């Protein structure tokens, strides 16, 4: 029982002596901004920094849900296709004259429904998440293109674009949502029983069961919440530009998974926070944006992403090994 409780003790309490992933990422972002800013001051233009945050807020939001899924020991590779489908639904509803509130809300609900179905496959039929989401990715991707015929949605009604809305007259809506959702999710995961159950199930299923957590129900909850964030991300993606493409950026799911992993979420066991994943999403976006300013070909971006994942995972494993030795 005591061992079971130890795995449920928040990681931030055990790691007090070490520099946490979150601070490292923050440091990384600051260092990047300073270095690139010195090389090319145009990078520091307010407009550019705002573009980085605005254009990638939806990735950070999607990475919140993805982090929960990974913390529980699963993965979702259908998220990119799902965001594409939900964004198209949102845009089509708005063009069809459905009230704006509903055209934002319905895709979010659909996201919850779709992910709950996948969650049921994983939790109750014991099919590995990678297989379920792999199949679902084909279904969603194929469905999207054959329904839309690859036609872009335009003529969106005025007021639909959330990216042009400002909260308190200064903060763009997507950035505001990104910050609020990250803080809310982080609080929820750290301080509530439901939040802790995700770490417990991901850390040690047997121990979690002995503590009274229900594995199936916890997994269902995680996938439903993941669907909620996917829905919000899709709406943010749809309301970014005045057209909605029938395809999402290539490898969107990989970018989202990268943000989660680099943010400190470990597949090895239930650790990591969503503050880390949001900071990682910002860092990755900032790196992508900065390549142009320091005259590096953007074609190297993916290699940089891969290196980032590798370095983070290696650091995580070495850290665990050192901690295990110290015990």
């Amino acid at each position: 029982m005591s061992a079971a409780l130890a795995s449920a003790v928040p990681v931030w309490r055990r790691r007090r002596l070490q520099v946490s992933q979150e601070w490292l990422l923050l440091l990384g972002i600051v260092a990047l901004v300073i270095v690139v800013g010195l090389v090319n001051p145009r990078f520091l233009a307010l407009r550019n920094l705002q573009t980085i945050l605005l254009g990638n807020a939806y990735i950070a939001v999607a990475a919140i849900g993805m982090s929960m899924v990974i913390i529980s020991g699963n993965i979702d590779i259908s998220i990119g296709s799902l965001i594409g489908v939900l964004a198209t639904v949102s845009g089509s509803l708005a063009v069809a004259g459905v009230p704006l509130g509903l055209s934002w809300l319905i895709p979010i609900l659909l996201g919850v429904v779709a992910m709950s179905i996948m969650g049921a496959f994983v939790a109750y039929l014991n099919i590995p998440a990678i297989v379920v989401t792999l199949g679902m990715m084909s279904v969603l991707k194929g469905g999207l293109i054959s329904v839309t015929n690859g036609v872009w949605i335009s003529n969106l009604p005025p007021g639909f674009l959330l990216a042009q809305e400002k909260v308190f007259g200064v903060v763009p809506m997507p950035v505001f949502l990104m910050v609020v959702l990250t803080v809310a999710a982080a609080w929820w995961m750290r301080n509530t029983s439901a939040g802790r159950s995700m770490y417990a199930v991901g850390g040690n299923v047997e121990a979690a069961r002995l503590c009274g957590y229900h594995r199936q129900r916890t997994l269902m909850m995680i996938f439903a919440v993941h669907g909620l964030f996917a829905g919000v991300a899709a709406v943010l993606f749809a309301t970014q530009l005045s057209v909605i493409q029938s395809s999402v950026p290539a490898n969107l799911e990989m970018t989202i998974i990268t943000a989660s992993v680099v943010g400190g979420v470990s597949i090895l066991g239930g650790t990591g926070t969503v503050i880390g994943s949001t900071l990682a999403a910002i860092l990755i976006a900032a790196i992508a944006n900065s390549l142009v300013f320091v005259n590096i070909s953007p074609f190297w971006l993916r290699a940089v992403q891969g290196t980032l994942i590798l370095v983070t995972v290696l650091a995580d494993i070495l850290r665990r090994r050192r901690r295990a030795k110290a015990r």
Partner: protein
Amino acid sequence: MNSTQTQPAPRGRYVPPRFRLAAHESILGIILVVVLIALGFLTDRFLTVDNLLNQARLMAEVSLLALPMTYVIITGGIDLSVGSMVGLSAILLGYSWHNWGFPLGLSIVFALAVGTLAGFANGWFITRIRVPPLIMTIATMALYRGFAEGISQAHSVRGYPDWFYIVGQGDALGVPTQLWIVLVAIIVFAVVLKRTVYGRALYAMGFNEIATRFSGLSVDRIKLLAYTASGLMSGLAAFIFVSRVSTTRSDMGMGMELDAIAAVVLGGTSIFGGTGSIGGTVLGLVLIQLLKNGLALTGVKGDATIMVIGSVLILSIVITNFAQRERYADR
């Protein structure tokens, strides 16, 4: 991932794996025959020698990836980087010939070597540093693709000499050349899996890695070899791919890892490891390719075809899961 934790321990009478596999393979075989007959009735362009041979040509690359993928999944691992290894090998084949002045023959060997090395790197990190296979190959999936894009700067290489196209576009004894390569590979992989200590060790490891280690088998070396084979076959697939389409591009092989995994899983190899067969994988490959082709010929659009394949994949796993659960619970 977390396979030992998420799968409940099977209870009840133990059924030897071979019997279960045979059952899955015969179900697949029946589905395949039904699909063949149904599509044959729907369109008369489907069941022709020309069409079927052409389909065999088109599926050569994915087949070469699916064979080592079967090994990797039997050990309980996964390799998501094969598509990117194809891209990297293809780019270095074209680049070393066109920009570094390698003789083309040497470039082909170089591409195979690059693939092998890339696979070896995956295996080395997975066995020595103990990075989980899923996360390691997600990282190298981005990394290798990134190298391919960075090195080529998205320029394509064309204009290979005529002899280079024999493998990808030519025929030997009335059959596409690459089909012979695939057939040899299938036989080698099947025999090694069923008839050698190495093959049996793959199963043992997927079933219980710790017990295998205590049995005195070198678990790390077995795994390392499986991932390295995955890299070598990716290099070979890259060579055939470039030869077939006459050009080298950095986005080659994108998404191919998912096609390969879908075929392996559809073929009855458990994603948890410990069971599976090359025969099942081949059936899975053929079924997917024929569905794609047959549906396209009957007028279904390519994108709707992907939907069908995704649904078939999920359904077949659900059915197998239920069948296995019943066998275990029949006491």
